[in-house]
């Protein structure tokens, strides 16, 4: 399975993702330059963490206009696998590939620490090796990790989850925060969503922890 790791100016976890795929998963992997229009026949795309284009305006606000993102959108629409980690997740939300948006952390500070996440569904390609309810410790590192969506979207996300077939025009929750003590930087507990899976049944997902770390 060939992986492609996007490189925006300011991506700083691109090498991390590359290393994990090459050294840990032992799969072919290549970097994909932001200005390119070619996904080089990759079977899965990773949108890595970092500060794409500096993120001075709003996270992902400029990255969504990168030429490569047009291809990623097309790829996703065709059922391709896309994984957004941290800034990559922010970019996918900003690009409209995932519902909702990310606001500043409740404490208005950057937070880097391990948090505990509970696997909410295992019928996604990204969580199929987990068991439902399993608790994973995954580091976070972000300033804007406070997930927000309107009540209808949230209700739909939860419904999709309960149905468990995880498809629909919207998305599905793949991981939820684990317990109050998990230190999730979201302001409102009921909106604590850590990872979403969106797409048309085949899957595309944003993940908020730094899985690569």
């Amino acid at each position: 399975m060939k992986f492609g790791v996007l490189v925006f100016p300011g991506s700083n976890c691109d090498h991390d993702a590359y290393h994990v795929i090459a050294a840990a998963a032992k799969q072919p992997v290549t970097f994909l330059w932001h200005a390119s229009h070619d996904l080089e026949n990759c079977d899965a795309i990773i949108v890595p963490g970092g500060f794409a284009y500096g993120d001075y305006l709003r996270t992902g606000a400029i990255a969504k206009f990168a030429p490569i993102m047009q291809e990623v959108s097309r790829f996703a629409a065709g059922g391709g696998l896309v994984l957004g980690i941290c800034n990559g997740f922010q970019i996918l939300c900003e690009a409209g590939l995932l519902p909702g948006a990310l606001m500043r952390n409740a404490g208005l500070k950057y937070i880097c620490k391990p948090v505990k996440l509970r696997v909410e569904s295992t019928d996604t390609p990204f969580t199929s090796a987990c068991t439902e309810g399993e608790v994973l410790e995954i580091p976070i590192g972000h300033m804007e990790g406070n997930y927000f969506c309107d009540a209808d979207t949230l209700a739909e996300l939860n419904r999709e989850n309960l149905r468990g077939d995880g498809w629909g025009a919207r998305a599905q929750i793949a991981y939820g925060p684990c317990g109050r003590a998990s230190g999730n930087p979201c302001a409102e507990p009921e909106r604590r969503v850590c990872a979403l899976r969106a797409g048309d049944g085949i899957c595309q997902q944003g993940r908020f922890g730094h899985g690569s770390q």
Partner: protein
Amino acid sequence: MATQSLQTPPLPCRATPELLKTHGITPEEYERIVQALGREPSLTELGIYSVMWSEHCSYKSSKVHLKRLPTRSERVVQGPGENAGIIDIGDGWACAFKIESHNHPSYIEPFQGAATGVGGILRDIFTMGARPLAVMDSLRFGRIVDRRKPPAAADRGQATERAEVQAQSSSYSPARKLRGLEAKKLIHKNHSILEGVVSGIASYGNCFGVPNLGGETKFEECYFGNPLVNAFALGLVRKDEIFYAKASGTGNPVIYVGAKTGRDGIHGATMASEEFREGSEQKRPNVQVGDPFLEKLLLEACLEAMQTGAVVGIQDMGAAGLTCSTCEMGARGGVGIEIELDHVPQREIGMTAYEIMLSESQERMLLVAESGREHEVFRVFEKWGLDAVTIGRVINEPRMRVLEHGNIVADIPNTSLTDDAPVYRRPMQPWTVPVPKDKPANAPLGANPDLTGVLKRLLASQNICSKRWIHEQYDSMVQTNTVQGPGGDGGVMRIKDTLRGLAMSLDGNGRWCYLNPKLGAMHAVAEAARKVVCAGGVPVAATNCLNFGNPEKPHIMWQFSEVIDGLAEACTALGTPITGGNVSLYNETLGEGIYPTPVVGVVGIVESIERTATPHFRSPGREAILLSAALAPYDDRQLGSSEYAKEIVGSLWGEPPALDLKSEAALQKCVLELIEKGLIESAHDCSDGGLAVAIAESCFRHEIGAELHLPEGSEPLEIALFGEQASRVLVCCVPGDRQLIQQIAAKHTIQAEFLGRTGGDRLVIRRGPSDAVSVYIADIKNVWAQALECALHSDVPERVVPETLDK
């Protein structure tokens, strides 16, 4: 480009006493300039001399002393004099590292000051061809907790009165004359400096993508008005791919890359070479503004350009910007550089030659490429969307020649700016610290029935409490190399594709150096090395940041000299040559200087990242052992320098703990052998707050308690628990290994005292039959973990806030 023969020398400036004064140049120095040039300097030239001869760039007061530091070993590839020091770490890898201060800017504009401090040190690392692997910071601030804050129930008026009495009796406090409201303002200001500095460091490092492994943060009254921000960075480079800041090859193009030049930071280096007076905040325009995104692009582009093989030499534009990089690169290569300012990318219109040469705009580099291959360099920078412009050529004559619209505006022999800059052997005066030698009579020892309460207070004190609030704001995991992040004794990074790792730590104790500069400096080296050892690294090299007051005061210069002697002795004894660093003088505000504060960063090699140690007790039922060097007994004079004296007694007296470097080296070897043999599960340096605090800290991470017995002794319990004897490490092991550990320790002539077992949810420390400390781990952990956050979010009376903000 014009040649010299067609040119007339630049117009001389009118060197009035006022002009010289604003440039920080003495009349004698001006005479030297005239001699070096053979004519009167132009205004641009005067500006160039003023920054290059500033204390910050020329080290004119410190040079004669710095020569005494050991700088060589088999591993040292590059010692002082380059952008960073480099050591050989095996497997074809080398490690570039350095520490640098950004103290003055961080007081005037905490966020940008600290951010650009991180930016500057990162550029120093990747200029050498190394990819930054990790950073750490050593921070010093004024008091953030009102020690005199009344207990909740107490009457406010009474408490304030008591506060003033205490404040007046306190031996060293710029704030001693301040009354209630004033003191609150001061604390509020310290909070905002701390918050600004921490978010500045976080914002720059996180965006750039370099993990921050913490470091150390301490609070003392004397750092109000002079906070210290020392950033330590370390990078990895293949040994055969190191780049140097040296120009060569007449006719080679000189290329400017990175951000455009603006008016920010003009005279930053001169500002950093003065004391602060009233109104120093107005120097805010002298502070540079950082853009970490641009720096990240610059990093990638520079490393990629270096791979082309077309780069001959490269130097970052840090302090003194274009001036410094131009003359230093020429001087190192024994050649000259001629540049035309019209080609320099500029952010603002109408900039004068003076402004362009002195600007300290960030994220810029100067490189020399091989003639005919510049397009290879340009292609890389274009890919990353950065400016890259040929602004000049390498010339044969060893001069720095600057043209504007084809006219010479500066034409200076390189060496008169660098090697031949003034060097001062400033007068020194031995000094006796104005604190009592002996313990005050009103602080009895051995009679306190509530030592658990004392432990709690110490754990909640500013210097000892958890710094989680700070290091959680730093990305400590990016690059996926972090083996040990913040919160331990030292940080450990793995080197990908090898088994090895690098350990790093920072240490400095200003209070000890104030009491005894030489001994204090020795402790800084010993403790930094000990922290690396506790993480499993063999200390191999060091870098230092020397923060002092005004060197024109003889007693400050004496402190400096003593500190150098201490560093030299300790670095030699512990096998950690100094490969570079930074000197920051004039850390004074309104004539009040800081404690002499040398900060030492030590780098260690971890042979296998499978064999490291953390300070944390990992399981119950393990045996705790105290390893210590045999030293003269720790007495109540030494207690005067401890956190106990500062926080509990509220006073300072006596001297730092005794230190024997030979025993310290033996202790470090012993701990390393134990870690290498896999005999110990945890290792923790006993430092601030003594053994009791070290034990408590070991319990916290996994919330594992312990029931321990102190060695028998007749000294007061306060000393046994909270005394800060040097050369002690708390380790723990599985029960079967105790004897083997004691044998190995004996071989190194190190004492290994069995203290007791881990387990349970309480910490109990006994001496003889009675409990000295007995408390639930959860209780003390909470106090320790929350203290900093509580202090920062403590209520500020409303009436204080608007007034402070007005300023």
